[in-house]
């Protein structure tokens, strides 16, 4: 029997971390997987020539870190989320500056909202990413639909 998301998780912010170091190899791999062809994603020299410290991440690259961060909520049995019934509803990225290889990012997960709609549950999470000094770098917001019966 499928479980349903526990509304008590809404509004919860998890402890920040762990620190994630952005990998040049993962940027290259992600760019190739999505067909992003700019040399800024794959060639450190080209990226440095354009004023960046290293290769630059494509706009949706942080989804991997966001999903790994969301997992502490989604995969918690107490959350009541049946992952086999989850589909992706919406996704949004806000980038305050380019993300480059070598960035050390600190993710913070907030469960923004859990609401019922048409027999389904809509779960919205936000992962804020800051540098180690606490300066905001990006935010990734995801809305997951947990399908009812």
């Amino acid at each position, binding site marked *: 029997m499928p479980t349903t998301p526990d509304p008590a998780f809404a509004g919860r912010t998890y402890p920040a971390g762990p620190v994630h170091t952005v990998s040049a190899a993962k940027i290259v791999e992600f760019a*190739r997987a*999505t067909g992003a*062809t700019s040399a800024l994603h794959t060639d450190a020299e080209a990226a440095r020539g*354009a004023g960046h410290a290293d290769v630059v991440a494509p*706009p949706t690259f942080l989804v991997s870190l966001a*999903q790994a961060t969301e997992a502490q909520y989604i995969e918690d049995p107490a959350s009541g989320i049946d992952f086999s019934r989850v589909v992706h509803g919406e996704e949004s*990225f806000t980038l305050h500056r380019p993300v480059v290889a070598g960035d050390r990012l600190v993710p913070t997960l907030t469960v923004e909202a859990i609401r019922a709609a048409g027999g389904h549950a809509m779960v919205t999470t936000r992962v804020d990413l800051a540098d180690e000094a606490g300066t905001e770098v990006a935010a990734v917001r995801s809305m997951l639909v947990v399908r009812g019966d």
Partner: protein
Amino acid sequence: MTTTPAAPADLSALTVGQELARTRHEVSRDTLVRYAGASGDFNPIHYNDAVAEQAGLPGVIAHGMLTMGTAITGLLDAIVDPTAVRAYSTRFTNPIPVPATGSVALEVVAVVGAIDEAAGTARVDLTAQVDGTKVLGRARATLALPAAPADGSAEQGAA
């Protein structure tokens, strides 16, 4: 790609309604496996038909995030500097079933939706379709672009 424009766009070079990119991307099971590895998203509905059908899907479907990530690449090529993208959001309106062999074509058009000169940004609206079905809804990217060429003499359309 071979058709790289010479320079990044500036805000004065854009007009609302202008088409910036029109691209077609083949999506196959190979594409899904490659994206799974690159992103770390190994949900089996993206590679295992039995699991996908058990979950009530027509079969293996593309990762929504693969669709989102791929859909913006035509725009990234058009603006040359991908770091001009400051925001990107979408709804996932329809899944993309991907056949075991062969591929499906994701067709994307990027059009300037709004220009905010005070903020130095342009909103670009993306439509993404497979076989005439919209797969992304309200897909929008916000670009931060220079206001005008350095000499400042050229107003919009002067070129």
